[in-house]
């Protein structure tokens, strides 16, 4: 199953902690997505998983493969950079689309267009 028979103890402990931190944060974000009331509150919750959640899992993966292959393995940085660049873009687009739809329907709870 796991091909990490000869991984030293400190690396195993650090990888485990980072994995559990990342997955717990992703779960908390999903819970917030389910529990919060309005869309504009809900749009904040999944960013927990897209920043520190996937980030600490990526750091765990980098650490694990670097120790296992005794050379720095850095291609996980690609996913991290991609996530950091794209998540704000998509969520801003989505929030703007939701605001536009709410205004067109005459929803009283959102602020009107700028005067």
């Amino acid at each position, binding site marked *: 199953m796991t091909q990490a028979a000869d991984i030293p103890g400190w690396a195993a402990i650090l990888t485990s902690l980072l994995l559990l931190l990342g997955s717990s944060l992703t779960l908390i974000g999903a819970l917030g997505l389910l529990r919060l009331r309005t869309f504009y509150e809900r749009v904040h919750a999944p960013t927990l998983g897209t920043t520190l959640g996937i980030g600490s*899992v990526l750091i765990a*993966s980098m650490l694990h493969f670097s120790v296992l292959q005794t050379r720095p393995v850095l291609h996980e940085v690609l996913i991290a950079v991609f996530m950091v660049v794209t998540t704000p873009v998509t969520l801003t687009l989505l929030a703007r689309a939701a605001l536009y739809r709410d205004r067109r329907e005459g929803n009283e709870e959102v602020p009107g267009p700028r005067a």
Partner: protein
Amino acid sequence: MSTALLAWSIFLAQMLLGLAMVLSAVRVLRGPRAQDRVLALDTVYVTAATLLLTFGIRTGGTLYFEAALVIALLGFVGTAALAKFLMRGEVIE
């Protein structure tokens, strides 16, 4: 010792991530409006990429990393296109 610790924590992390995917899928099914469903679908994409990374740590191969990269890319393109559709009514004008 360290192998057992790593195996158990990977198992627990996969359970937590699977639960997160289930909660997001509930929001996809329930979400009162279209933007809620798109947001929850984006969360499912990101969680799936994280889950594939944990599979990669478990098996020690690089194939899962590439799959996670492709899923992250497709999630960005899909969510951006759906947000454009909600805003304008069509994707490519």
